[in-house]
């Protein structure tokens, strides 16, 4: 019996196969095997070592809010505080260390540009019935398993197609379309911070209002700088549990709470969104704690949007949130003192309308994204004259 490779016994071969199989598993234990980390209930992202492009491209800009230590840099935009050696890429995939400087690769390269109804953000107390010019570049500093924009939020800038749209041109397009406001949205604007900031600044200078739609995972200093140009924000408070934040979103709770406080303190109109994910974010007790915190720290007039979950992305094996659960959570939220609690993603539901907390009358009727009856005048209830918080015109 001839063998092509003499001297290699079958036993040795099997050993080799075993080692090979073990080696085969090795590459899967990193980013591509979140199951390992999921069992540890933490899916936070990691810095991409030696993943930066060899050279910068047209849509790069030196980042702000970073510190240096020799050739290493630390990004201080968000709580991830990525420590990047030369050639590394941040958790959000958009920021890199090239030769000891931090650069954003997402500046002027918008991958999603649309004109949406402002109610779609959702913002219910800010210029209702108007359109909003919405743009996004790639990247996100979280890893939400239910992300509906994962095709841009979980990608590197080089991996997606984009249009060139530098700040001035973006504002010009909004003005040409007679659109009163701009939203930084879809992916996570914190990751394309400089693009958001500069476009907001340009928009403010030309009389266009700015809306931040964000996960709120940002540090205080850059946030305060950004707030100078913001008119409104919708912050996604994904749950009121650090454990769930780590397991479902790859983040932590405290920085988001801090963001809410800062935005409120800076006088930016603030609405809060919570996606009610079955078996994770549908606890009455957690909702009570969350609403107590909101009322205490932010006051009772911050609208809260409770959205119905539908299976998306990698949370595909959960059912939609029962409407009864949403209604119950809304009741709890209102009993804790929040004046305006909306139910979203349930077309035709009466809780998508605005009611006066004083007289209980219907003030703003919403038919999908369209506005029906409207009984607010000069920010006051058309029936009892109570001030209804928001920017109504």
């Amino acid at each position, binding site marked *: *019996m*001839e*063998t*092509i490779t003499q001297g290699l016994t*079958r036993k040795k*071969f099997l050993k*080799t*196969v075993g080692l090979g*199989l073990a080696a*085969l*598993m090795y*590459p*899967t234990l990193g*980013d*591509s*095997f*979140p*199951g390992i980390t*999921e*069992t540890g*209930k933490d899916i936070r992202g990691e810095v991409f070592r030696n993943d930066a492009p060899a050279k910068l491209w047209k849509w790069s800009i030196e980042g702000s809010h970073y510190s240096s230590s020799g050739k290493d840099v630390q990004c201080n935009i968000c709580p991830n505080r990525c420590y990047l050696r030369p050639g590394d890429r941040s958790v959000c995939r958009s920021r890199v260390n090239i030769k000891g400087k931090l650069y954003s690769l997402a500046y002027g390269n918008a*991958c*999603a540009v649309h004109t*949406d*109804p402002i*109610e*779609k953000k959702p913002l219910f107390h800010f210029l209702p019935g108007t359109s909003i010019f919405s743009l996004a570049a790639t990247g996100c500093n979280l890893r939400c398993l239910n992300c*509906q*924009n*994962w*095709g*841009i939020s*979980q990608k590197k800038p080089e991996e*997606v197609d984009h249009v060139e749209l530098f700040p001035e041109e973006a504002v010009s397009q909004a003005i040409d379309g007679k659109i009163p406001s701009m939203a930084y949205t*879809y992916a996570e604007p914190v990751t394309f911070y400089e693009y958001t900031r500069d476009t907001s600044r340009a928009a403010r200078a030309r009389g266009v209002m700015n809306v931040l739609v964000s996960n709120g995972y940002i540090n205080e200093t850059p946030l305060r700088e950004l707030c100078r140009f913001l008119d409104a924000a919708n912050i996604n408070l994904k749950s009121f549990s650090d454990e769930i934040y780590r397991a479902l979103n790859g983040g932590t709770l405290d920085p988001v709470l801090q963001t809410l406080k800062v935005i409120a303190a800076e006088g930016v109109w603030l609405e809060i969104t919570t996606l009610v994910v*079955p*078996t*994770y974010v549908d606890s009455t007790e957690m909702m009570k704690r969350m609403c107590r915190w909101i009322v205490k720290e932010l006051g009772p007039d911050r609208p809260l949007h409770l959205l119905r979950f*539908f299976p998306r*992305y*990698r*949370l*595909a*094996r*959960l*059912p*939609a949130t*029962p*409407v*009864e*659960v949403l209604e*119950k959570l809304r009741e709890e939220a209102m009993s804790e003192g929040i004046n305006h609690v909306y139910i979203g993603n*349930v*077309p*035709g539901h009466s809780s998508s309308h605005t009611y006066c907390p004083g007289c209980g009358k219907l003030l703003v009727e*919403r*038919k*999908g*994204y*369209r506005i029906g009856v409207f009984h607010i005048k000069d920010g006051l209830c058309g029936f009892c004259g109570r001030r209804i918080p928001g920017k109504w015109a």
Partner: protein
Amino acid sequence: MNVTGGKSRWIFFDFERLSLVFLGISSVTTQLLTLREFLSQFHGNEITFSLSIFSWLLLSGLGTLLAKSISRPSLSLLSLLLLVAALMPLAQIAGIRLLRDAAFLHGTSQGFYQILFFIIAASGPYCLVSGFILPIIQSVSRRMDNPLESAALYLFDSIGDIVGGILFSFILVYVLHPFKAIAVTSAPLVFLSLAGLRRSGSTVKLFLSYTLAASFFLVSLWPGLEKKTLSGQYGEILRYIESPYGRVIISEEADQKTIWEAGVPLYSDRDLAGSAEKVHYILSQLDKVEDVLLVSGGLGETLNEVAKYNPRSIDYVELDPSLTEAAKQYNLLSGWARARIINADGRLYLSGTEKRYDAIIFDLPEPDSFQVNRFYTEEAMALVKKAMRDKGVFAFALDYSQNYQSRAERRKFSTLFSTTAGHFRNVLVLPGERAYFLCSDADLFDDIPERLKEKGIASEYIEGYFYGNATPERVRSLNQFSEREPSLNSDFSPGLMKTVFEQWFSRHGSSPVVFFAILAALALSYLIFIKKGEYVLFSTGFSIMGTEMLVLFSFQAVYGYLYLQMGAIVTAFLFGLLPGAIIGRSRMGRLNPGKRLLQSDFLVLLLLCVFWLWMAGSKLSPEPWIFLAYSVLFSAVCGFQFPAAAFFLGEEKSPLAGCLAADLWGAALGALVTGAFLIPWMGMERSVIALIIVKISSIIIITRKGGSRHG
């Protein structure tokens, strides 16, 4: 399991032979149940299926090799192992269900590596034990007065496999839930092992064994076990159906009922958006709506929305009768009384019906398996066109990202645009919760609220949301990229599936490239190492499992349901091996084995060519029995090859384990490479060509100088 040897005696009633038959019955049922369980746990597509088969073969093979370490096994040890093998299936199926949430975050879908690891971990122990037992049986029999030669071992094992396959596929699957099926098919093995222990074991061991066996039957026959092991994933289960077509579950949380199919929520109460969009986008296009055909997706308010147009008839085709029955029972099928519910495969219905429709709606999941892809192919479009009136409209929907269309997504849409545009003059894609493809020879309209207004039909959802979702620039954007690439999607060259698989990998942040590269390196080093004759066995194992995958998936492409026929086709492949092996080890097989081997290799080649010709050139849809007959014939030829190859090699020079390893690892690789790589990435036609090349290489090896009896 392929084993060869010299003469055999046909004695059915000694312990060892009965062990083989009963083990075969139990293990085949366990394999089929495990496959179905994995398909339910991981929203099974071809990749999950292939990984399951690959792991099963690989680990069973390892179990067989491990048995070499036991030099003189006793009857007591064998009996104990048989008992373990009989009881393990219960723990395995329960473990798969219960451990999913322990291994992964509740409610998440999983990617390639997660599925692979889970499959290996969950099915590994049983595979190792069942593979381990076969050589032990042989060793024990050699110490008795009635030694089992290896060919006889193979024959009896095959008999068990075939009986188990037939029992499960034609009887148990229709009448019993998984745990009860396990109780039935494991029972002979349990009783046999207890008998063996009575002959050889100590009293304590016997007592423990009786206790274990009694517990096994109590637990597996407990009526609440199915729901108990599933409730962690589904919550409160109102109804659980293990239909021949898949697992259907209705769960309840608060006031909401959810209907699940294959582990994925199919519909939850009050999904108005989906019902409104899929009905009004299409029906509003028509001046007059008389006959409407809905293929799947009739749950919820859909039929009521259709009824707003006062059609003369609504035909709702749904494959699985248990799905529609359960939906009716729990009021998840509003307005069903106004529709004619037809429980049939949508494509087969279309090909057979003489009726003509004004509107045909496909409401199906993403085309990530052949079962679904076949509704998005050229062949399907031709059937739709045939069943549609001149100015009728056809619609289907795909998942998409509302804010950004990735390159893969654009390619997916382009493929579909090209495929539909070959049959319809106008194709319009409208955005909504999903992207709706509208196809017609008549003009199409993109202002749906305006059309509804003209018709006096009310839809609060469309009125409120349409203009916000389907803005002119979003509509323009969707329809711009649909006019590019001219690639087409067909039943056997499913270009669409390749793109969908790419998206699947992208969604889970993983790539199979590393896995396949390392596997290729390992396979290459193995191929360099093995004896030339063993390569023939390797290629035979590769071809037979590759062909089994192709037969399974081509059957799925033609008939649309694999879950039901999976057992029958697997059994057909097992069935063919038996007569093939009998002939192979008979005198006929021994006569000039090299020549016989070559002839059989040519026969395999011929059968593969027939398969390719059917796929490439024929528009025929063979009857199901033809698939089964082909499977039997193909496996018979391959079954013949094993003993013939062993004679050719010379058993004294080619140890049994070496032959087994070549055959099994060829089979494992054949299943994996064909199912998870060749078919999804190259399509079925090219996959057959790849198998043909493998077989040609085998022929070259045989005919090469030095390729004689001693390799």
